[in-house]
């Protein structure tokens, strides 16, 4: 009897371990891939975030009023600045049209298929931020009903912030560049006076708020302050999206290649409004 109980106990422990291993496998795959939400999950997420959006309306109103009151102090300075900019706008518009035509011609010539001009911009509000500390996700108030699809690039006026990894009918999730997920590598080029240097954003230095680029030859000279933009390679991000500026260089663990630290102009801890780049149909 005692022997049977002992064997039963062994089986129970074995079953628990197997279940745990399966759950860990599911967790691992769900964290690594852009898993499609089940209809039930999507419905629950939409419902909770819709209620959240309603609750946020009065809060947003109060915050906007506070911001408005703060901005009033600075209004005359802004007015004079805008007036100056307005004087140049016709000239700039003409220049832009000329450049767009030139760009279209060059794109056709080089057979590029992933530049900014092919994208429409869709603005969205951040309605939920993952505060789990380790995941670096944002939830937006626009989903597949607004035309958002997986892997679309997400930007702010200060530069690229990440890509869409999950979409429901009314919401979508953005995985930030600051995510330590190894599947989140972004192909970038560093614009130096002599040439463009290509590399991959491979990690994020949380302590110093810097994006780390590796895979760069040790011979390449990279001046501080050089602009870093996306290459368009890989087909996820269009080319030419601002990522940041070079703030530091070093060597990798084996002292074979150069690592470059990039300071993003985006404050990843304080993002309220974003733009999703939709590929123009």
């Amino acid at each position, binding site marked *: 009897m005692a022997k049977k109980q002992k064997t039963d106990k062994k089986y129970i422990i074995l079953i628990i371990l197997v279940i745990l291993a399966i*759950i860990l496998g599911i*967790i691992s795959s769900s964290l690594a891939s852009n898993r499609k939400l089940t209809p039930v999950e999507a419905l629950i997420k939409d419902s909770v*975030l819709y209620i*959240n959006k309603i*609750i*946020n309306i009065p809060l947003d109103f109060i*915050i906007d009023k506070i911001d408005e009151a703060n901005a009033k102090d600075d209004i005359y300075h802004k007015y004079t600045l805008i007036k100056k900019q307005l004087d140049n706008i016709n000239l700039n518009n003409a220049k832009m049209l000329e450049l767009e035509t030139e760009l279209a011609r060059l794109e056709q010539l080089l057979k590029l298929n992933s530049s900014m001009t092919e994208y429409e911009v869709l603005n969205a509000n951040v309605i*939920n931020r993952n505060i789990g500390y380790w995941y670096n996700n944002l939830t937006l108030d626009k989903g597949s009903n607004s035309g958002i699809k997986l892997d679309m690039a997400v930007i702010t006026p200060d530069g690229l912030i990440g890509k869409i990894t999950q979409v429901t009918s009314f919401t979508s999730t953005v995985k930030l560049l600051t995510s330590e997920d190894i599947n989140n590598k972004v192909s970038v080029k560093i614009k130096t006076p002599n040439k463009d240097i290509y590399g991959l954003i491979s990690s994020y230095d949380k302590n110093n708020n810097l994006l780390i680029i590796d895979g760069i030859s040790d011979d390449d000279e990279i001046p501080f302050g050089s602009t870093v933009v996306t290459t368009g390679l890989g087909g996820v991000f269009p080319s030419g999206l601002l990522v940041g500026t070079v703030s530091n260089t070093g060597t990798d663990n084996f002292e074979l290649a150069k690592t470059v630290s990039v300071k993003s102009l985006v404050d990843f801890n*304080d993002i309220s409004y974003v733009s999703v780049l939709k590929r123009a149909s």
Partner: protein
Amino acid sequence: MKLIGAVIIISILLESIASQLIVTNTFLLLPLFTIVSLIIIYPYFNNNNQSFLLVSGATGLLYDIVFTNAMFLNGLVFLVLGFIVIITNESLSNNKLNVLIMTALTIVAYRIVTYLTLLLVDYKVFNFNELTSSITSSILLNLIYSFILFCTANYISKKYHILKID
């Protein structure tokens, strides 16, 4: 049961709102209200531990859907936290000071268990400083929330004569 449901749903909604209002790198102010709600609701299960664990797991799954987009991660972690809440409640009586102690313990456990799970599935590389800063940045705000929630739930349970263990 209505009180339990209300506490969990209000905590999830407040956590979501707080996450937008509070800048994420603000030290000491990271909200984990849903976890705090588990500690507050436990006495209202009147030693029905099985139901409490079921609710904990379900809350974890809901938390995954709303916040993390990971499947089963918090479902599993919340179950572990459920066990921790049961064990701490066996040794500590239910008063304001003990609720604060239990909140601190549960938050430390949450951070450690989640971090270990993320290490196990190869999502993270071990960094002790990161773990400690995630713990310290989550304590203060959640202690305040647990105190307010405990007092509010106590007041409501007394007013409407809802049974709970002490």
